[in-house]
């Protein structure tokens, strides 16, 4: 965004890309109301990689869906890119990656990736160029004409990330994108995702239930706990931007992981 820095303002930090204030979300179910989110406030700045971690029912996915305007909060406010979540969605401000790749079996990988581009009305030539570029970005160059069933689970998920990147949204919302994949593939994809984030400078909100994944990827880790869904801790990572996989054995990494674990345990104590 063309944020001309007003003089006198904090020089290092920009206006938050996503800003939530006192979000409440209550689902009415047959067993009575469920407080999926209660009093959730958080700022995400441009270029941050924020992970949301917590046990199931803590509202981490719900929070992500509120950012994406897939759920409406019952209280509080949310702004995305300086506007409402709805306006941001309509402006195609974010790419959303679901837990399942959700590729259409009747489309090739290339045509799957160009699907949002078709919907958004990009020209054929532009579509082609973009598909080529994002495929390269997720290291799937040459797979454009393959069908989803010809790809492994990890490759399919990479294709779905490519699809979310294709229309150049500045924000990437990811809901346990690697949750269904095995450990080894997951490590590899985490590494790739970090590189991709570094290269593209996207703002990423990433839901996970894996502590190592959250610590390895994030610049900021948001620990949440259930009943009602709320934020119990926000940890700014002290790890450097450059992160080889073996950083996970460093004392610094373990210390952050320890703090996340403590946060999760504290959230559980009052249940």
């Amino acid at each position: 965004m063309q944020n001309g820095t007003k003089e006198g303002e904090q020089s290092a930090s920009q206006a938050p890309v996503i800003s939530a204030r006192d979000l409440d979300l209550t689902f009415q179910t047959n067993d009575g109301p469920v407080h999926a989110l209660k009093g959730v406030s958080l700022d995400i700045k441009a270029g941050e990689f924020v992970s949301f971690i917590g046990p199931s029912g803590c509202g981490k996915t719900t929070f992500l869906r509120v950012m994406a305007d897939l759920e409406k909060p019952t209280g509080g406010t949310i702004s995305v890119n300086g506007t409402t979540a709805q306006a941001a969605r309509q402006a195609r401000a974010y790419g959303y990656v679901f837990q399942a790749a959700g590729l259409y079996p009747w489309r090739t990988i290339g045509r799957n990736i160009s699907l949002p581009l078709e919907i958004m009305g990009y020209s054929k030539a532009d579509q082609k160029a973009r598909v080529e570029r994002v495929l390269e970005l997720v290291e799937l160059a040459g797979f454009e004409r393959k069908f989803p069933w010809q790809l492994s689970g990890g490759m399919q998920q990479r294709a779905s990330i490519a699809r979310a990147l294709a229309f150049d949204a500045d924000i990437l919302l990811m809901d346990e994108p690697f949750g269904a994949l095995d450990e080894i593939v997951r490590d590899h994809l985490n590494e790739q995702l970090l590189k991709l984030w570094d290269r593209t400078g996207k703002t990423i909100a990433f839901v996970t239930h894996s502590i190592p994944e959250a610590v390895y990827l994030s610049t900021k880790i948001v620990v949440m706990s259930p009943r009602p869904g709320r934020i119990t801790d926000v940890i700014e990572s002290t790890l450097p931007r450059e992160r080889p996989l073996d950083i996970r054995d460093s004392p610094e990494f373990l210390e952050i992981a320890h703090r996340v674990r403590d946060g999760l345990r504290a959230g559980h104590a009052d249940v």
Partner: protein
Amino acid sequence: MRRAFVPVMTVVIAIFAIWYVAAIFLNAAWAHDKAKRADVTLSTSELIADTWSQEKPKLPAPHQVGAEIYKTTFAKKITSKRSLVYHSWITLGPTFLGFALGTVLGTLLAVGIVYNRTMDMSVMPWVIASQTIPIIAIAPMVILVLNAIGISGLLPKAIVSMYLSFFPVVVGMVKGLRSPDLMQLDQMRTWNASSAQTFWRLRLPSSMPYFFTSLKIAMAASLVGAIVSELPTGAVAGLGARLLAGSYYGQTIQIWSALIMAATLAACLVGIIGILQRVILRRMGMA
């Protein structure tokens, strides 16, 4: 394919065996009658031979039906009024037209039901009610009413076929168009896709397996509709006419050969759709 051969042949042989045995029992009375009048006594083998070769048996034996079918399909010119090919051709016209109309009507209704809440609540009960009325009761009225307003020939029969064939299409397509899961629909929402875009790019392709299954049932129903619709018009031509004429004159062999012809036609038509289904769904990565 090869593994299915033995079980299928076993069933076919069993059916023929039961058929021949049943023919003996059902036609024995007439054979005895004839023998009594001619004042002869029949040995068992003579009895059996007679029951399998009567002119107007209660139940014709398979080889009699086979011979009749051969005679009326291959041995006759196909333009002849006695050719089963000619009569099949007459029946196929309204079958295809009715099938096409039923498919279009069924699909349109399904789209309406999926996209319009009012239609969802109001149309489905009527669709189901329509199928509780026996077609044999509806067909003459459709034919008569349309004749009265000057529409005759192919269209009234096709409408009877449509009446039967739209139903499986509605039911299947409603399910098919609703088959995309919540995640896929949410995904469309994140791209701010319009309803039309979601329909053409997600809902319609997702419904294809349901569509083809519906088409198979609709095709068979269409043929039944076309046959039934030939009955009230005085049975001039068509498989239905052959059935009716056969029953007027006690020509059981003619009835059975028309029946077998109708069943074969239905099997072929459904089979063609099955092949289309397999080819298209495989190309779509859905089979």
